[in-house]
Every structure is written in C-alpha cells, then in structure tokens.
C-alpha cells in the first residue's frame, strides 16, 4: 500500500505519510496497558477471595494501603464456637447507626439463638437469612466485587472459613436536599429539582411515573470514578433501535472519570463539531418524566442534577415545561414570541450592520436620518462597532455569571450604566448599536434553553462578520450553511429538524407554532413515539353536561 501511494502520486507523499503515522499511533495506543499499577507489584484485580479471613484482610490492607478513610472492624461472631469476622467500610459514606444495629449487634449478641447444626452447615446463609436486618443485602463471590462494593459505599462483611462475602447497603452521606431548580424556574408547576444523588433522582422519577414499564438500567462508566449512570425509559414506548444505539455509544466509552453529564454528552453526541446541542438537558423531574412519556430516554448521571434527554429535536429547545402547565392561549403567544426571539438572537446585530452598511435604501427616510445622526462621529465602521459591543456584552455576561450574586449586580450596573452610557456620550459607539446589542442579549436570554442560546451566541459573531463584508447576501449565505447543517443533523437517528423537515405540517402546527390544548394532544411526536402513537383518547374536550 505504501509503495503504490508513492509511485503513483509523488506530490501526495506528504499526506500519505501523515496518514501512515496516524495508523501507527492508533496501533500503539491499543497496545497500551489499560490499568498499570504504579507500584508494579500486583494490581488490585489480581488477588482472589480466600476462605481464610487473615489472608483476605492482609490483601485488603495491601490494596487500600495509605487510604486513611478505609476501616476494618474485626470482631468475633458470638456463636458457641466463636468465629472471626470483619466488616469493611469507608468512613463517612455509611449510616453508622445502621451498621451497628443491623450487623454488629445481631452478629455479636444474638447468635446464640441459632441452632448450632444449622450454623455448621452454611454459616453465610444463616447470617444472610436469619441475622442481618437489612433490606439491601448481596452475596459476593469475587474479589473484584468486594473491592467495587466497598468503594461504592457499601459495607462488606467477611467471615472466617467461607470464601463468600456479604455486601450491605447502608449508604448515607451529606448531600444537598431536593431544592428548587435554579436554571429552569417556573411560575406554575412543581418546584423540586434533581440533586447530586442518583438514587434520589430515580426516586423522584419513580414517584411521578408509577408504572412497571418504567425501566431504570444501570451502567458504570469511568475507570476510576465508576460513575453510576442510569438509563430511564418506558418499555414498549421507547424505540428499541434508539435504545440499542444509546447502549452501543455508552458502552464504547473508556475514560478515567465522568464528573458531569457533559462528559457523556460530548462522548455520545451525533455531531461533535456542531454548535447546536443534540441533547436536551434538564434538572426538572417533571420535564424528564414528560420526555419519557413521549418515548424518549433519560440518561441520568450520578453526581449531577443535569439529566440528558435523547433523542432531541430542534423544536424542543423552544419549549419550556411551563408551556404545558399554563393555559394554552398564553402558551401559543409565547411560542410565537420565541420563534421571533430565536431569529433576533441570531440575526439582529448582523441585520443592523448589513442594512446600515449596504442597504440604506431599505430604511424609511426618517429612521435613516435618526440612525445616521446617531452614527455621526463614531470612529468605527458598523462591523467593528458591532463586534466590539458584542464582545463587551459577552464579557459582562461572563463576569456576572461567575461572581457572587452581590458583586454580580454591581458589575451589571457598572457595565450597563457607566460603560454603555459613557461610551455613547463619548461618541465611541452609536446609541442605536447599543440598543441593538442590548436587545439581542436579552433575546438570547429569553430562550428557554441555555445550551441552544449559547450555540446561537457563538454563531452571531461569524454572522456579523459576513454581514459586514457581504451585506444581506452574506447573512443569507451563512443562514443557508447553517440550514444545510441542521438539515443533515440527526439525534440518535432521528432527523434533528423534524417535524419541520422532513415535514409533517400537522406536527409543525402542533409542536412549533402552537401548543395544542391538552384535549387535542392525542398523539405523540411521530418520529419519537411511533411505537405507540396514542397518548390519550379522543374527545376529551370538556363540554357542559347535557340536561
């Protein structure tokens, strides 16, 4: 292959070499050991669970050397012939009272009531079935399981003479409670949000959807963090192909750690180079539940309240959960407003630049005079002015976001009043430009989705540049490129722009332009909930009773 490449195309040798190098690199990466032990003696997986308690404890101490929060509590089981035993746990991750009440007390004090012949036959079984008072109890036969369970905040019991361990769930640690969602506030609707504990989150979900069809599959991702990830969906409603695809993409992840669902999002999304998000995120249980009821899949990650929802369509980023709680006429107006806002957030500054630079004839004369008056004496062309103002706005936004709330307000006051006002007074920028940029900023905040708004903000800069060089033609060109990009995007196999394209005019009206009243929402979105498209029965429209 190498020879051919060189002989046939001499001038292409360079790319060929680069390609070869890439291939080599990939090979060497594959050969690399996944889990080298820094000490080089034995990695933690290479031990085995033995029947002798002393051996096990010694091995455990070797594995967890220098881990100050790892504890082994050795004790003697109080049968007629005393047996040595030990519980292993990490300090601070368990309910200590439960450990004492459910493990230590019964094992030390209440063992005498057990018939000795039973005990002699199968000690672990006796302990499991008769002694330990815990709801969450598992038998472990492998060394790796022992390590994993202990690390996952369970309490593990080892008994001398049996090569089996018992893992007891007594997880309890300091956690943030279920609080109000900070990023998705509503006027009407439930006020709780997910928190950082995955079990709490699945419980919140289970409290909403009380159906045996609600499945919560567990996965563990991350070599070191072993982050618990749950796929929640409604069986029979979910598209099996999409589910398989989610599984496939998640299972190929090999990474050190997953600290937030953002890691997963970037690792499994369809279009890694796109400024547009292909996964909806939410920290609201009601929103996630609504998505699941439409046939979508929620990917919940331990350690973050932010849940990913797949597959996601573009139009969903224009919806807020509150749309479905408020009465529908209001929601319809809001939908139209959001469509306008979406375009304003992307196009307004560039339209201003294009029209003032290239197409003044489009502006009615009185307006043109006032704009020209405002622009008189400003030193920069409209393009530079717009870029500067946008940059200033972005700086202000970023500064306000990271600062403590009290200081944040000061920043916005200084930014808006002092800099804005002074810049106009000094004639550095025109007041019309300040108005345009400020309105665009507000418009981008009026979108319900933060990720979508950020994507649009990113595209605003190239849009302004195109407008500055090519006027309306430039804006149209970039819009067309964006449109083509959106058209070719898919989210887990579902066309991203659906139902706009491939078009389904009924759904465009129902999902994008209107929020249909609940009694008219008889069908689920076709591309997602097609397994079972009926959502409710026909004819729920309320009528006065017949006399």
């Amino acid at each position, binding site marked *: *292959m190498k020879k051919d*490449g060189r002989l046939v*195309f001499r001038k*292409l040798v360079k*790319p*060929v070499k680069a*390609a070869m190098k*890439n*291939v080599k690199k990939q090979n060497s990466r594959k050969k690399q050991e996944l889990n080298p032990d820094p000490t080089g003696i034995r990695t933690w997986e290479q031990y085995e669970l033995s029947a002798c308690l002393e051996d096990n404890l010694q091995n455990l101490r070797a594995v967890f050397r220098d881990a100050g929060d790892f504890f082994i509590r050795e004790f003697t089981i109080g049968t007629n012939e005393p047996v040595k035993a030990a519980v292993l746990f990490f300090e601070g991750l368990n309910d200590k009272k439960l450990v004492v009440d459910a493990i230590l007390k019964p094992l030390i004090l209440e063992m005498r009531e057990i018939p000795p012949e039973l005990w002699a036959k199968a000690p672990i079984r006796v302990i499991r079935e008769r002694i330990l008072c815990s709801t969450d109890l598992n038998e472990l036969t492998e060394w790796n399981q022992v390590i994993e369970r202990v690390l996952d905040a369970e309490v593990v019991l080892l008994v001398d003479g049996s090569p089996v361990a018992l893992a007891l769930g007594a997880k309890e640690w300091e956690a943030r409670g279920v609080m109000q969602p900070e990023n998705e506030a509503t006027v009407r609707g439930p006020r709780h949000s997910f928190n950082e504990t995955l079990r709490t989150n699945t419980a919140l979900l289970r409290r909403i959807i009380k159906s045996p069809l609600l499945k919560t599959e567990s996965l563990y991702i991350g070599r070191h963090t072993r982050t618990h990830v749950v796929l929640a969906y409604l069986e029979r409603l979910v598209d099996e192909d999409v589910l398989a695809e989610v599984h496939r993409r998640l299972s190929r992840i090999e990474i050190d750690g997953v600290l937030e669902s953002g890691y997963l999002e970037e690792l499994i999304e369809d279009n890694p180079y796109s400024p547009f998000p292909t996964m909806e995120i939410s920290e609201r249980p009601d929103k996630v539940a609504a998505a699941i009821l439409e046939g979508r899949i929620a990917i919940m990650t331990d350690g973050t309240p932010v849940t990913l929802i797949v597959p996601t369509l573009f139009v969903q980023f224009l919806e807020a959960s509150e749309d479905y709680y408020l009465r529908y006429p209001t929601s319809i107006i809001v939908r139209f407003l959001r469509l306008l806002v979406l375009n304003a957030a992307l196009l307004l500054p560039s339209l201003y630049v294009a029209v003032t630079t290239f197409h003044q004839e489009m502006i009615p004369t009185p307006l043109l005079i006032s704009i020209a008056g405002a622009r008189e004496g400003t030193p920069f062309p409209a393009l530079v002015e717009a870029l500067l103002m946008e940059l200033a706005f972005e700086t202000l936004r970023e500064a306000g976001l990271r600062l403590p709330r009290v200081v944040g307000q000061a920043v916005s006051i200084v930014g808006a009043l002092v800099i804005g006002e002074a810049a106009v007074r000094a004639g550095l920028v025109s007041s019309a430009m300040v108005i345009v940029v400020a309105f665009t900023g507000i418009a981008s905040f009026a979108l319900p989705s933060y990720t979508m708004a950020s994507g649009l903000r990113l595209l605003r800069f190239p849009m302004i540049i195109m407008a500055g060089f090519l006027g309306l033609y430039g804006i149209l060109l970039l819009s067309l490129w964006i449109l083509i990009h959106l058209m070719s995007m898919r989210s887990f196999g579902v066309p991203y722009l659906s139902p706009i394209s491939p078009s389904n005019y009924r759904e465009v009206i129902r999902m994008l332009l209107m929020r249909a009243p609940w009694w008219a929402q008889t069908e689920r979105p076709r591309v997602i909930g097609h397994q079972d498209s009926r959502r409710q029965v026909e004819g729920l429209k309320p009528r006065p009773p017949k006399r």
Partner: protein
Amino acid sequence: MVLLLTVIFLALIALEVPKLVQGKMWRELAVYSALMFLGMFLSYAKVLRIKIPNPDEWIRHLYKPLSEAVFHYLTGK
C-alpha cells in the same frame, strides 16, 4: 493572485486526499486527481491570462444558423 490560488488548492487537497488515501480508494483518488488537475489548469490559465479554448464559443458557432433560421421564421427579423 497565483499565490492565493495555490493556497486555496493546497487547502482543498489537504482536506480531502488523506481521507481517500487512508481508505485506499485509489479509483476515487484517480478521478479526483484528473478532475482537480483540469480545474487547476483552467484557473491558472485564467489567472496567468493564457488563451484557452472556450467551449461556449464552439457551441455558439454550432447553433447560430439554426437559431437565426428559426427566429427569422417566427419574427420576420
């Protein structure tokens, strides 16, 4: 201008050729090279003001008699 053109062509080639080579798509590469060569030849010829035959002119000559005859019949001009 020649320099700009060269940069653009190098960029285009660098973007596409490695993929073809990696995929061992020799036939595709051959077609790509032939067409690209034609395109590059035309562009350099235009920039360097080399006289190249214009296919449009041949077509104009070819169809002129027919066109004149038909329009003469229809409009009398």
